[in-house]
């Protein structure tokens, strides 16, 4: 049996985690091993990135029988869309490790390693049962990391997020099984392979509506889309820094990824039909969570909502049904993951030194911690989409896409982004710049390792903003493939 690079990326962290568990390594040692693993994966990811050919089709296929009796296979592959998310995750995780360097236990690092396995598995799976396998298995380390290392009423919020996500994924599970059975009825053999399930033609409209919303539920909870967001605030505020980072910058993006990767090919007609509603739902989320973010005085909660708001924007982009919107969404996934991930890591750092504080109790951090302020500013500028950052490129593209879809949608989203920017600046001024009498003397600046962790993100944010074409060309064939061959609506 031969296994390729994708399997290596998936299972390297898993085996490292298992190895670490069985040997009495200290927390520091575990951390160093975990970091080394993530760097190796980054190199592997780069290798894949350079070898990736510019077509819209799956590459690096790996195919092994798993459960013969039901035609379930260990089937992996990547296309342009998974490629960029893989690159994103491979880059983000070592950076996050550097930011989380001190004061974590062994269990924390083992959970982080296991989560990376789950994420990569979800990203590469081409068999729906395999996908579900990783999608659900990913939840366990998240469960552990929030429950063991969270703050506040952490057990409650852990159970809450678990129950929410499992509710969604169990319905998706039934839908997957239903698709498999339909395929069996039509073709006489079992398969849960993505490319096979796409060709089912016997499903009636009512059935596919149920299936569409079954899948949608799972992904909408994960993202979270309005109105499935009620777990968001509590989980984000009670999670440890690493947990928030994973939830906001990686797992939420996987929800969006899954919509594009699975729902679009499986239900192309319904996808086009419901696109307007979903797009408006996304824009509503942008607006709603944007307003909610302004109401928060806890900085972590504020960014939790701002993150959800941007995810609504991304969803609007993927349902805008044109190259601009889709490319913008893909680009915003990266931009937002880097910026929000970076922001949450920085906030975690701030909490670590001065404790959790409300916005009015902060201020004057710029003087105390100049490096911290610099990176915070870059991330923030990316979030609000200032020209010169990749946030600008992506938000501009999505606004263009939504405008093309419907001018009102474009205007509403542009306006919301603008207003959000003003409020973000206001927050930045109050927290970081403004001199107050508050005591923030415990605040320490970033050390060398943390700068090393933040630097790649900052560099990427700016270089992707200045020269987007260099990064976009890998994904364009895939997006055209989606629009032309799968949705049959052509490149508009």
């Amino acid at each position: 049996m031969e296994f390729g690079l994708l399997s290596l990326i998936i299972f390297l962290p898993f085996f490292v985690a298992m190895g670490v568990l069985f040997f009495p390594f200290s927390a520091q040692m575990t951390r160093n091993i975990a970091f080394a693993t993530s760097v190796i994966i980054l190199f592997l990811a780069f290798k894949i990135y350079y070898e990736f050919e510019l077509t819209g089709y799956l590459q690096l296929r790996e195919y092994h029988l798993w459960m013969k009796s039901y035609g379930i296979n260990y089937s992996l592959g990547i296309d342009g869309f998974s490629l960029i998310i893989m690159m994103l995750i491979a880059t983000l995780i070592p950076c996050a490790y550097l930011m989380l360097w001190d004061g974590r236990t062994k269990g924390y690092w083992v959970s982080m390693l296991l989560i990376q396995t789950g994420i990569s598995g979800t990203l590469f799976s081409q068999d729906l049962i395999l996908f579900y396998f990783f999608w659900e298995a990913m939840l366990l380390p998240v469960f552990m990391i929030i429950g063991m290392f969270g703050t506040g009423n952490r057990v409650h919020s852990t159970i809450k997020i678990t129950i929410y996500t499992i509710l969604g994924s169990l319905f998706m599970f039934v839908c997957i099984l239903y698709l498999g059975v339909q395929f069996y009825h039509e073709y006489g053999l079992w398969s849960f392979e993505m490319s096979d399930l796409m060709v089912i033609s016997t499903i009636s409209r009512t059935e596919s509506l149920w299936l569409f919303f079954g899948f949608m539920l799972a992904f909408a909870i994960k993202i979270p889309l309005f109105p499935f967001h009620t777990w968001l605030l509590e989980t984000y505020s009670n999670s440890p820094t690493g947990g928030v980072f994973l939830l906001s910058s990686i797992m939420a993006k996987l929800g969006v990824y899954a919509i594009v990767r699975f729902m679009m090919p499986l239900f192309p007609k319904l996808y086009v039909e419901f696109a307007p509603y979903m797009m408006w739902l996304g824009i509503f989320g942008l607006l709603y969570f944007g307003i909610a973010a302004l109401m928060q005085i806890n900085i972590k909660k504020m960014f939790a909502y701002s993150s959800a708001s941007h995810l609504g924007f991304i969803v609007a982009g993927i349902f805008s049904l044109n190259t601009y919107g889709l490319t913008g969404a893909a680009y915003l996934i990266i931009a937002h993951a880097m910026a929000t991930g970076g922001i949450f890591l920085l906030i975690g750092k701030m909490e670590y030194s001065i404790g959790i504080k409300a916005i009015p109790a902060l201020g004057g951090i710029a003087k105390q911690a100049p490096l911290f302020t610099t990176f915070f500013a870059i991330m923030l500028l990316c979030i609000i989409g200032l020209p010169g950052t990749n946030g600008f490129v992506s938000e501009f593209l999505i606004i263009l896409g939504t405008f093309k879809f419907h001018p009102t949608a474009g205007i509403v989203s542009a306006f919301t982004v603008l207003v959000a920017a003003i409020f973000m600046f206001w927050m930045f001024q109050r927290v970081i710049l403004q001199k107050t009498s508050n005591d923030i003397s415990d605040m320490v600046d970033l050390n060398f390792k943390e700068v090393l962790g933040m630097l790649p993100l900052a560099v990427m944010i700016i270089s992707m903003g200045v020269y987007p074409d260099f990064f976009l060309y890998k994904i364009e064939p895939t997006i055209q493939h989606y629009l032309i061959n799968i949705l049959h609506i052509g490149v508009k």
Partner: protein
Amino acid sequence: MYPDFLYIAPLVFVGFGGILLMLLSPFKQITIRMAAFIALFFMLCATGLYFYNISELYSYYPYAQTFGSMIVADNYSAYFSTILLAGAIFTILIGVHYFEKNRGFTTEFFSLFLFSLFGMMLLVHATELITVLIALEIASLSLYVMIGFQKHLDKRMEASFRYLVLGSISGAFFLLGTAFIYANTQTTKISQIGIFIQNNPQSDVMLLIMGVCFIFITFLFKIAAFPLQNWAIDVYDGAPYPVTAFMAGTFKAAIFGFILRFVLVDLELIIDFWDNILYVVILLTLLYGSFLAIIQQSLKRMLAASSIVHTGYLLIAFISIDITGKSAASSIIFYLVAYFLSSMGAFGLLSYISSDDKVRITYEDFRGFAHIRPYMAAMMSVFMLSLAGIPSTIGFIGKFYIFVAAIESGYTLLAVFGILATFVSIYYYFRLIAIMYFYPSAKMQDVPTLHGMAPYFIGIISLIIIWGGIGNTLITYFPGVDFLMDMARLAYDSLQVK
């Protein structure tokens, strides 16, 4: 062809072991440990005998003249007997420590244990309804005594007596059903009942249908389905842990072993009459079982209540049998293996932990358990995850098969209900994991001491569960889920051999 004796040798071994232990019981020199090893020896011999022609399809009536074709040896009975023997072996291996530490167990207990196992094995070999009744009663009677074996505990006596009274009534229903069937068909042989149904119009088999209904009542009682589930929690709770484990996983498998044969060989043509009733039974079993499981504070009672929910899952596949016989039947067989492993692990671990002086009963007793016994907590988590059907455990694959069978037969709504029950089960299974991991450790003097081999066997079970969940054809030589499923299908096929 092998000599006839080889086909019944496993039964003979187990029965002989029971008799030998009974004869040895007056001797005080025989310690509990020795008795356990004698029982193990006979069971291992019996298990070994099932592996000699594992991949070949066969169905043979050994000593057809002597036994009058009342006992059959086929892949089906071999598969089920192997499950039963595995369950019994694990029960003894894990339970030895419990039996030694707790007052009241003697050599006779192991004798009864083997007799009970003998009854269960006979149950899956039997092809004649009176033989089935005898087998069922051998198994049940031994269990009644085993439950109440610790005479000094009121709880045990109460559970034993409750099970005895209710179980006897359900046995009477079986007898009545058999009488009805005999009145209609003039036979009690399972294969001939099937032929009778084929040759006669439905209007002529009404009495037979009545009889089948009575037999199904016994069936629903023994597997604790709604509305006959009320005994389960109290009896499971009242019984000693190893006996509970044995009942929950193994006895349920034996009952299904008989009823599946009965339905698949005989009743596939007329089973439709039962579907509407069964549909309601399933819904209420899932609903009521989930409700009971949520409200429990004691872990043992929670596991007992959740076994009712698992009965519901099994019945979901059972109702699909008349439409997609093969996949439904093999999914039931597979799920029985998955459930037996997970519940055996969970009960076994609980029995091990509580065999010492400090008894842990409720959820709260496990607060912070992961910090004092990390490996045990990890194993417990594996069992909980498997029971909840989370991927990477065998429980997930089992649920996958069950729900595929249901959807394939058009019972999509039932599959959705099953999913909802699974969803509820996340609460009571994950609650234990959360309590073990997310709270600071309890007082250190409560640390259970480590002794004996039991933790290793429990560890082996948890490894099997994980292997069953991810195990695949990647390592070709090692049997995984595919092997179990292939065997289950072979077992199904062997029922069709005429």
